[in-house]
């Protein structure tokens, strides 16, 4: 294969011992390129890589603070079995032995891997190969199931393959972008900025946001349609009907390149008497609806940009297809500035789908449904135990763990105790499971508490491997610094276990490039275009083909230029857009219209409930294990919250900025009420990030019903009827602490500071009386200052070690007080003068106003500094004149000798 196209752009520049590496951001699905500056085994700075096609040099706040997430704090440094440090050899032997015994006794389907869109493609590939080809079970699923399964299946249904046809550049050139079920302003800031910039350059471009919430993205839209939650398919079915009515269909395109239009249109029309019925179904003004439809119909280049609001639904696949139907019907697909663009949540959600990391896929865009495909993969892998059927999808997988069908599970790079629906069931299931293996970088994940074996993994900056972002761009993450302790790369850990399971030859990898080459080779194995001249009749066509990289040199791999797949003989430099020729990956090469009967969410709220929507906030990522370490990322939103409409606040007697409790499935979520018109009545919003490491009770997913899309198994995260009530705090307050502590208050929330932590606290119990409430947490402290009132309405406690402020607690029964602890945060760990340190109890800086210097006249509280100021002013020439001006020395006269010294 022609390697020359991959020129060496990765030229680490050495400036005073610093090297600069081109790598990628590990957070969202945008997949921004990064230039990282490394010095002394530490990434000291990051900036956007101007040459990366995703971000063109820009970075959001999360990516910009990547270097601040480093450090040994909370890193797992050694393998552990039942909490005891062990050698790698013992750890991997134990895992292998246990899996082997379980498989021998209960069969291969009694074990499972639960993977993550955070893994690199090589990690994913090896895990998938081990389970599906060698252990012989389909039980490999991934947190992408919670994220992309709907879109993936919708693509497969419509196009014959899970393919995102367009690319980010289309967002720059589209004349209208319909953002539905996405808040890119927060969740995908860099592509959002591209849309905004494009509109600035050409103000005739329109941004239409369809979202029940008035999100940051909605606020800046030309049109916002706050539709009823879950009514998205009604909206797009209605659009299809409108397009037909208005004669805006691309009949030529439909006839040439599509299949099933008539039935699809009829199905859409069957649900509505007219367009106004659509408006009713979506609970929006007809005029608004028509305005948006008109924009879609009359704009040549339209991109629909969709994400979790579509995917995380009991009918997410249908919603995806309802969108695609409209684009196919108007030919707004497969060309510049047009298409249905699914944006992924995770950095490598697409890479995971490429290797077959979902239990419903086999490998390399090949599936179980066709025995030829199974045979193809078996041949390529020389697999002794190729899986022949789909494995369990995430929700079913943990149900199987709970029911005891699965007896050993290996979780890698994800935190299902926080992220899964009905997360308390996951907790319970893992508690019961005889063998839980967790590969993880950080100690502070909720899932690790249930691990029998903990395997320390390397993380961003340490590990090398490839990822595929939302627009099919493959990039390579660089290993720039050494992993701490005994942490290893995930692919190595899996390989070690594979060896011990007896599969040494098939897992003989020395470097991630070895895996990548194999992955690339598989993608091209027996793969030819149906119209290709040289074609074996048994070939199975997959658009996903990166076989041009099957022999990539290590150097070119390490200096890989981000490229969109396919990357093969026909497209050696990759391919910007797919389906430009109207040829699809289906058997008849036509795109499928899918008839959709729009449906509302499965469980609707009763009169006493509200509908809980969930999502990301701007500055946090997933379960906060990494972003929660950065102080500045905690400043925008530092507490689990509940966004509530004013009507609901009144109805449930909730006060703004006070705590409220949500409950469902026996789980509770305690968050601070944020009364806002951004929410529709009857609907609340909570962030998904908080968990047991960061708050007392804020795992939103624990309240999410395990309702899934029957086609793809993706859970309905966006629509959970829950009960809501006031928390009824007796007091609230905060604790600033040098060390992380375990809080026992009914409500607490942890915030990382530059130094130490801040805990926001509240309880329904009475506020304590003195420092004994902290004594258990800080047994090493015996030096306290306590401020209180006898009625137990106010309590402030400062603890010192060697005159350094170690912790500061402040609480009040006046719940209306706002918190401002900035001053105290700055004082933490600083040495304080014993005679003046009590002033810290104010919690605020007096700006030196109170500092009069050493006290000279006790009667009138005149200090040295005040006296010196008076002398400086020149008005005071004698003790008597000082007395006239400041009163010093005019009462008991005891200070007159000292006053005289100012004049000698």
């Amino acid at each position, binding site marked *: 294969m022609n390697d020359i196209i991959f020129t060496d752009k990765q030229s680490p520049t050495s400036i005073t011992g610093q090297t600069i590496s081109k790598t990628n951001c590990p957070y969202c699905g945008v997949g921004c390129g990064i230039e990282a500056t490394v010095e002394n085994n530490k990434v000291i700075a990051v900036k956007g890589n101007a040459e990366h096609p995703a971000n063109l040099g820009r970075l959001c706040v999360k990516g910009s603070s990547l270097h601040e997430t480093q450090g040994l704090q909370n890193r797992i440094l050694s393998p552990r079995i039942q909490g005891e440090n062990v050698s790698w050899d013992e750890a991997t032997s134990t895992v292998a032995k246990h899996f082997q015994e379980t498989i021998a006794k209960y069969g291969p389907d009694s074990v499972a891997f639960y993977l993550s869109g955070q893994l690199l493609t090589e990690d994913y590939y090896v895990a998938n190969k081990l389970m599906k080809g060698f252990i012989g079970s389909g039980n490999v699923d991934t947190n992408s199931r919670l994220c992309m399964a709907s879109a993936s299946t919708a693509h497969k249904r419509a196009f014959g393959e899970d393919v995102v046809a367009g690319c980010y550049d289309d967002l720059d050139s589209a004349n209208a972008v319909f953002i539905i079920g996405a808040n890119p302003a927060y969740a995908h800031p860099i592509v959002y900025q591209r849309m905004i910039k494009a509109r600035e350059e050409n103000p005739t471009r329109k941004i239409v946001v369809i979202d029940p919430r008035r999100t940051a993205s909605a606020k800046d839209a030309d049109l916002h349609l706050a539709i009823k939650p879950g009514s998205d398919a009604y909206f797009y079915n209605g659009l299809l009907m409108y397009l037909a009515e208005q004669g805006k269909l691309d009949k030529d395109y439909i006839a040439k390149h599509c299949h099933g239009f008539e039935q699809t249109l009829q199905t859409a029309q069957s649900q509505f008497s007219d367009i106004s019925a659509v408006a009713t179904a979506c609970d929006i003004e007809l005029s608004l609806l028509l305005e948006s439809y008109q924009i879609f119909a009359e704009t040549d280049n339209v991109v629909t940009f969709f994400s979790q609001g579509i995917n995380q639904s009991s009918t997410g696949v249908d919603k995806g297809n309802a969108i695609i139907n409209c684009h196919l019907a108007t030919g707004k697909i497969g060309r510049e500035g047009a298409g249905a663009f699914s944006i992924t949540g995770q950095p490598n959600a697409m890479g995971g789908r490429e290797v077959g990391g979902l239990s419903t896929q086999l490998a390399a865009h090949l599936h179980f449904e066709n025995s030829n495909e199974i045979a193809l993969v078996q041949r390529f892998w020389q697999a002794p135990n190729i899986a022949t059927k789909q494995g369990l999808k995430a929700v079913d997988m943990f149900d199987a763990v709970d029911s005891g069908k699965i007896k050993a599970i290996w979780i890698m790079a994800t935190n299902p105790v926080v992220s899964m629906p009905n997360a308390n069931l996951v907790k319970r299931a893992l508690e019961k499971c005889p063998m839980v293996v967790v590969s993880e970088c950080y100690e502070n994940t909720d899932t690790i508490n249930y691990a029998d074996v903990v395997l320390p993994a390397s993380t961003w900056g340490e590990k090398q491997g490839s990822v595929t972002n939302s627009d099919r761009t493959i990039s390579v993450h660089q290993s720039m610094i050494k992993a701490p302790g005994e942490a290893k790369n995930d692919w190595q850990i899996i390989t070690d276990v594979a060896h011990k399971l007896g599969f040494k030859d098939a897992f003989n990898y020395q470097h991630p490039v070895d895996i990548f080459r194999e992955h690339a080779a598989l993608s091209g194995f027996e793969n030819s275009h149906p119209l290709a001249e040289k074609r074996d009749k048994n070939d199975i066509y997959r658009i996903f083909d990166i076989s041009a990289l099957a022999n990539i040199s290590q150097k070119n791999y390490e200096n890989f230029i981000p490229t969109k797949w396919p990357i093969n003989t026909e497209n050696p430099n990759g391919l910007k857009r797919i389906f430009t020729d109207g040829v699809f990956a289906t058997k008849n090469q036509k795109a499928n219209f899918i008839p959709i009967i729009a449906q509302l969410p499965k469980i609707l709220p009763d009169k006493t409930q509200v509908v809980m929507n969930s999502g990301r906030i701007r500055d946090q990522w997933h379960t906060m294990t990494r972003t929660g370490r950065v102080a500045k990322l905690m400043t925008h939103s530092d507490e689990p919250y509940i966004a509530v409409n004013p009507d609901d606040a009144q109805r449930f007697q909730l006060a703004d900025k006070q705590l409220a409790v949500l409950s469902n499935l026996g789980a509770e979520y305690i968050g601070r009420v944020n009364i806002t018109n951004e929410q529709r009545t009857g609907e609340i919003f909570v962030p998904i990030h908080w968990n047991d490491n960061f708050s007392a009770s804020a795992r939103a997913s624990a309240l999410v019903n395990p309702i899934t899309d029957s086609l793809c198994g993706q859970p309905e995260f966006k629509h959970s009827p829950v009960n809501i009530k006031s928390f009824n705090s007796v007091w609230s307050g905060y604790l600033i602490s040098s060390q992380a502590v375990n809080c026992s208050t009914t409500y607490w929330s942890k915030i990382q500071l530059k130094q130490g932590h801040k805990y926001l606290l509240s309880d329904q119990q009475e506020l304590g009386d003195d420092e004994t409430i902290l004594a258990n947490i800080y047994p090493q402290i015996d030096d306290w200052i306590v*401020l209180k009132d006898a009625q137990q309405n106010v309590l402030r406690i400062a603890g010192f070690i060697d005159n350094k402020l170690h912790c500061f607690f402040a609480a009040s029964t006046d719940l209306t007080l706002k918190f401002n602890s900035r001053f105290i945060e700055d004082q933490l760990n600083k040495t304080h003068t014993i005679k003046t340190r009590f*002033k810290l109890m104010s919690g605020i800086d007096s700006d030196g106003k109170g500092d009069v210097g050493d006290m000279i006249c006790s009667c009138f*509280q005149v200090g040295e500094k005040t006296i010196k100021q008076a002398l400086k002013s020149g008005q005071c020439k004698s003790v008597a004149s000082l007395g006239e001006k400041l009163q010093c020395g005019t009462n008991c006269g005891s200070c007159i000798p000292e006053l005289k010294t100012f004049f000698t």
Partner: protein
Amino acid sequence: MANTANPRADMLKNQQCESITQIKPSLVIIGNGMATGRLLDEIIKRTPNKYQITVIGKEHFGSYNRIMLSAVLAGDATIDSIMQKPPAWYKQHNINLLSGSEVTYIDNKTKVVTLASDVQIHYDELIIATGSRTAKIPAKNQNIAGIFNFRNISDTEKIQAFAKQAGSNSKQAIVIGGGLLGLEAAYGLALSGVEVTLVHRNKWLLNRQLDKVAGFMLQSIMEQKNIKFALGHEVAAFESIIATNAEITSEDSSEILSGVRLTSGEFISAQIAVIATGITPNKELAETANIDFNRAILVNNYMQTSDAAISALGECCEHNHATFGLVDPIWAQCITLAERLCNNVQKPFQNAPVPTKLKVSGVQLFSAGDVEVSEGSQCFTLLDNKALIYRKIIVKNGKISGIVLFGDVSSGMAYFELMQQQIIVNTMMPELLIGDEFVTTIEDEQKVSIA
């Protein structure tokens, strides 16, 4: 009639001849303590020539700062340094000073005072400013050598003389009374190397000014200064031995102190005892003058006694059921009296609470108003046991009703003013407790607080 010892007495004889009135009215002041010193200043400031002033003082000095006697005892000041008005000052201001003199009788019908020396002096306006003396304690056997009061220069010199000997052979002293004066005396003695035990009736020191927490803090600081404490005890009796050493004998007794027996039965050995349990107003002259008295000489809002020509001032007077021991209200009395005498202005005296301060090096305390929380009041405290800092503000009906500051007295006067002016402080709490400077910040940020 006895010899006339001063020009005013001559004038008395010639009074009728001097009707042309070059003669000024005679203002006689009995007592030459701090109150008199201040009153003279106030009078001179207003009308330096209106009265012919005569001051009769028991001590052989001009006016001195009695408050500073404890500093003298502690060696922080000398007797010379605390002299405020030497005899020359009186001369300079044309004031007739009769030091070392005592008035024995007031005849308010003839407006004449009689001295112990039988000299008689006519007055037009008479001011009694005789102060107070140490209160008696009920202990037995007080008539022995080695028992001292701590009121004047003479007391101080005697105690100092004893302390001076302490350097060579270890000496022990008992101080009775855990109020301000007792503590200052104990501190002064301890500084001289005397082994001091302070006996106090209450469970903690300064119990009228401090609560238990502050009292114990004070005790621990004083203990670091080598003072021992017998708290919750009273002296039942002084015990003595017959003097064998001529050096320690007193004029009156051949028995000298060997120690005290407490009511608990415990014996503490000591060579001297200083009684500082409180004061008794010197009101006896009022009896001779037939003017009204109770615990002390009764005065109205203008410092007048029941005889319009006689005023009383300072520790010997009683106003509205209150007697006085601290300088602040007495200064106010001086102003009221001077206004009336000099300017004929009726400026009523208002007795305001006075913050307490202690003059012991390294001890800062400030106390005013209530000490203990009462029904319906709020109590805010700040306690730093390591720094020995304690602050307490009692709020009643939204207003400060009590202040106890120990270890750091900053903002004490600001609190005191808020208390005096009855300012509502609810919204300032608890920041105010840390310092008044924090309250303005709070107001600036409006309801943004730390908790």
